[in-house]
Structures are given as structure tokens and as C-alpha cells.
């Protein structure tokens, strides 16, 4: 295998639970609790999971927008986990994030032109006519008209605003883009436009993506590798084909079975998965999925399963697969 562009090893991000009165630490939310991931250059890694799975915290911890509690993040061969702020700032040119709601991540008082000029100014890479040209290039790249530079975020539709968010992320020619539900707030016809744009840009600019999404259709369309998270851990990961067509973890199976299909009469016959996702502040013992698992055994409530590597880069953390 090629040297991964990004490697995450044993990542843990815990948040303290403070008491209301004296703000004393009374507990810990293990939002991310021992996650290993790797993305090869030019690939798209999808991270899927329901609320509370920790998928968003993983994305922010990789960029150190949230400081991880433990583990390592290795980017382009360098351990960035303990880099100083200044060094991290330089590194952010190489790794960028696109959020779900562009409206809340674009300054409403700034024109699109100024929003897109900001990365060049902060990193002191262009000014004057050169800067204006770079902004025009960015607009062209994401399919927005040149006049957009003079307008404000509220004058655009959701899809166009997401194009601006993508343009800003691309300004300094990063190698890695983390998309945190980048199409979840968009209507389905617009979602297709943005997914096609992301795919085209990936080819043109040789980008690597980590796509965080709850939408399995979106993930299957755009991702090469997929990691399925449940309560802070990766329960199954591997190539797209393995995850979607040969899943081994009962949670992955249940998640796939729950996805409604736009095909009347195709509804799966089996009963939906019972229960809710437990709180990450009080995760169940053993395998966190065992209270909802239709195939749970006695040891599942006692012993957390370790990741087992199957052929073809398919990794499963489940006692059904672990054997022994």
C-alpha cells in the first residue's frame, strides 16, 4: 500500500462533564475513544455514523480545531499532534474543512470577494491585481460567475453558498479536505450538483477527501473507503464494496437495512433495529452496541471486541468475527 497521506492512531477526544454548581468534573464524555484511520493520497474516505457516533469530533480533532486527548495524527509523514499553534497555522494551508451550513461559516458582512481573499491575505501569498485574479480563478473553479465577488452571502442560495465554502477551502491549494456533512442541508437536486463539483475538483486538483456524513447513499456514491462509527469507535472499515455489499458488523447491517430506498415495494422485511443510540457519557459495557444488537452473546456485554483484519483491508470489531 502507498504511504497514507493521513494516518490517525488511537485517537481519543474526551470532554469533561462539569457539575452545575461548582463546575467540578463529575464525568467524561468519550466522544472519540480509540479511532484508527488511514487515507491514501487521492482517495475519498467516508466516515458514517448516527448522532453521538463521534464522526464530527474525529474531523475536528484531525485538524486540531478540538485538541485530542490522546493518540497521534500523522499528516504527510509528520506527527502533527503536538505541533505549536504557529506551525499548525502553516499546516492548515494543506488541510482544510468544509462545513454543513455555509451560512453560519461565511461572514454575512463581507462580500464573497473579501471572504475568498482572506486566506491569501492571512498567509501573505497575494495582493493587489494578483489577489483579484486569484479570487476570480476560485469563482470560476467552483462554477460561480465573476460578479459574485461583489455580492454578499445572503444573496445566494444554499447550493451557491456551499460553492463559496468550497472555493474558500481550495484557496491555498490544500491536499486534504475534510467535508463535515457538506451536502446535508441541501435539496436533493442541488446536492447532486455539489457532489459532482466535489468529484470534478478531486480529479482536477488531485485532492484527498474525508467525507463525514450520515447519508449512506452519498457516501457510497463518492467514497473509496468507508469507516462506520458507533459511540466513539470505528466498528467496521474497509473498501466501499466490502462495507456496502459484504458488511460483517451487525450495526453496519442494521444501518444499511434502515436506509429507506426510493423504490416502492423494496422495503426490507426484517424488523427495524430497536432502541436509541446510547449517550456517549454513559456508554454500555463491553461492546457499546450490545444492548441493540440482534446477535449479542454473553461475552459482548463484558468484553469490548478488538479490531480483526480480514482480507482486502476490511477491518471489523465484533466478537462474531474475532473468533477465538
Amino acid at each position, binding site marked *: 500500500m502507498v504511504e497514507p497521506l493521513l494516518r490517525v492512531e488511537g485517537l481519543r477526544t474526551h470532554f469533561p462533564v462539569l457539575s452545575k454548581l461548582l463546575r467540578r468534573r463529575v464525568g467524561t464524555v468519550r466522544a472519540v475513544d480509540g479511532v484508527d484511520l488511514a487515507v491514501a493520497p487521492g482517495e475519498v474516505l467516508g466516515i458514517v455514523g448516527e448522532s453521538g457516533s463521534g464522526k464530527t469530533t474525529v474531523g475536528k480533532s484531525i485538524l486540531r480545531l478540538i485538541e485530542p486527548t490522546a493518540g497521534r495524527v500523522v499528516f504527510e509523514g509528520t506527527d502533527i499532534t503536538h505541533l505549536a499553534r504557529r506551525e499548525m497555522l502553516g499546516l492548515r494551508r494543506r488541510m482544510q474543512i468544509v462545513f454543513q451550513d455555509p451560512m453560519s461559516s461565511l461572514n454575512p458582512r463581507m462580500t464573497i470577494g473579501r471572504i475568498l481573499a482572506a486566506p491569501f491575505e492571512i498567509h501573505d501569498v497575494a495582493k493587489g491585481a494578483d489577489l483579484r485574479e486569484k479570487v476570480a480563478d476560485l469563482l470560476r473553479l467552483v462554477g460561480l460567475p465573476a460578479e459574485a465577488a461583489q455580492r454578499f452571502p445572503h444573496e445566494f442560495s444554499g447550493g451557491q453558498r456551499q460553492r463559496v465554502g468550497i472555493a474558500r477551502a481550495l484557496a491555498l491549494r490544500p491536499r486534504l479536505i475534510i467535508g463535515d456533512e457538506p451536502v446535508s442541508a441541501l435539496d436533493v437536486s442541488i446536492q447532486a450538483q455539489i457532489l459532482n463539483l466535489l468529484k470534478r475538483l478531486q480529479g482536477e486538483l488531485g485532492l484527498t477527501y474525508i467525507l463525514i456524513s*450520515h447519508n449512506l*447513499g*452519498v457516501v457510497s456514491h463518492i467514497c473509496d473507503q468507508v469507516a462506520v462509527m458507533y459511540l466513539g469507535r470505528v466498528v467496521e472499515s474497509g473498501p466501499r464494496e466490502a462495507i456496502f455489499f459484504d458488511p460483517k458488523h451487525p450495526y453496519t447491517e442494521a444501518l444499511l437495512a434502515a*436506509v429507506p430506498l426510493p423504490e416502492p415495494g423494496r422495503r426490507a422485511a426484517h424488523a427495524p433495529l430497536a432502541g436509541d443510540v446510547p449517550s456517549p457519557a454513559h456508554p454500555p459495557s463491553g461492546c457499546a452496541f450490545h444492548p441493540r444488537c440482534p446477535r449479542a452473546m454473553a461475552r459482548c456485554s463484558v468484553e469490548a471486541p478488538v479490531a480483526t483484519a480480514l482480507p482486502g483491508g476490511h477491518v471489523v470489531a465484533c466478537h462474531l468475527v474475532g473468533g477465538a
Partner: protein
Amino acid sequence: MDAAPAVLEARNLRVGFRIPGGTMRAVDGVSFALRQGETLGLVGESGSGKTMTSLALLRLLESPPAELAAEAILFEGRDLLRLSEGAMADLRGARLSMIFQEPMTSLNPLMAIGRQIDEPLVTHLGLSARAARARTLDLLARVGIARPEQAVRAYPHQLSGGMRQRVMIAIALACRPAVLIADEPTTALDVTVQAQILALLRTLQEEMGTAILLITHDLAVIAETAHRVAVMYAGRIVETGPVAALFARPLHPYTEGLLRSIPRISRVREATLPEIPGVVPAPGQLPAGCAFAARCGFADDACHATRPVLTPSGEGREVACWKPRHG
């Protein structure tokens, strides 16, 4: 199913908002009939007018600024537009009920959920407090809440999103309504919980014979839950028909485009997703002809000049298009 009479029928429903220099039409002449015991899906993207339609049916739009007009909104033979506020309030939550996307905003955060379910039973059905509580416990069990005796004492914030939506369904169905209007009932929920809630709605519908008007942006939810579907675009219904036929052979290019633009889980990956170019026209700026013409790959001069109206096309289907697909 075809023979079942309509319990709720909208005839030429219009909703406008006064804005400086004119009226912005959010709903522009919507007509449909919801039959006894069926689920009719009302699907559309943002700005299609689907939620305005549901609020108008319930007369929950504040006027002004909203202006509601219709030939009639018939519910069990009565015209809702002619009812007094008081009579309308008696219907809502009793014979004509609703659930919304975010149950947290519909539930009273300061009241234990038991009392919130008791309330409609006492006010609408005139049950005694004791009889109402017995019915409440039964309802909670039927919507799949374990240990109802404990659940009645819980407050909304102590419940998960899925549990809160179950409580809302219990309240909505407490008085065995003839019609349930469900506006994006599973949109805020995780996919495994969504599957539970959709299954619950199907089961309760079979038991109670309630007709459901299901409003959603999600065609897959419609495919799994509805018997018939009406597709809305820019304030109008552009296509309607039985779910199986409409999904298999969409007639309107917009319906076809929507269905094709959904990314599906399939072994073969398409290089690009079929997309619908452009954006929905703003409600104040509707063209003279077909509102979809500017985004349509099949439009010609006639489409831009004259607006098509809903026209029957066999098998209980209707389409508003000059150049229907599969025609």
C-alpha cells in the same frame, strides 16, 4: 383503496404573503383528495410550498401577513374555511391531528408527558382524569414506549428524539383522528430511529384506519410509506399518482430529475450524478409559463409561454406538463 371516500379535500388552495409591491404566492392553486385510511405523500424541495399547504389546511397560518383562499377545504364533509376559530380548535388535535419535525418545540417542557397526553382526552373526549390516564398508559404502550407507568412522569428533555416523536404520535392519535398531517416527522431523527417511527406509523394506520398526509422532502420515505404521492414545485402540484407507477415511470421531467439525482447504494458507481441545473425560482418571480421550464431539458417555446395544468393521464395519474416523459 380506489373506492374509499375522501376525508380531506383541498380545492384550489392558495396562500399568499403581502410584500411591498405585491403578493408573494407560496401556494398557487393546490387541489388534492386524501382518502380514508390511505397515506398521501406531499413531496417537494424547499420553497415548494408543501409546509405552507399543511399549515393552511390546519388554519395555523397567521393572517395577516398570510392570505389564505380556496374554493373549499372539505374535512368529513364540512368546509374548514367556514368554521369558527372555536370549532376549528375543537377539530385540531381531535379529528384532525398533526405531528411536526421537531417534537421538542411542540411539547410543553414544563409538563410531565403523562399530563400532556391526558389533556386532549379530557378536553376533546370528555374522559374523567382516571379514565384518561388509563388510556394514556395504553397509548404509550402502543407507540412502543417501555414502562409507560414511569414514562408518564418524565419530562420532554429526559427523552431521546425518537421517544419524543413517539410521545407526539401518542398525543396526535389519542382521540383516534380521521386525518393525521405529518410534516417531516422523521427528518430530525437518525436513520435507525426513522425506520422505527415509519414502521410505527404504518402499524397504527392499519389499526386505526387514520388517513395520513405525509409531507416530506425525502422521496425514499414516500416510497416506503405512502400509497399515493403528489409532487410539488414552486407552489403547485406538478404530478400525482400511485406511488409504484409514479416512481417506476415518472411523467414530469422534474419528478424524473429528482428521482435520478438521488445517490443510491449500488455496486456500479456512476461517474457523475444526473443533476437538475439551476435553482427553484423565487416565489415572487414565477415565469408566465411552466415554472420548471428554465431548468428543464425538454422545454420548448410553448413551455415558456403557457403554464400547463394538471391533466389526467390514466391509472389515476395526473401531470402538469406539455412534454411528459414516458408519454
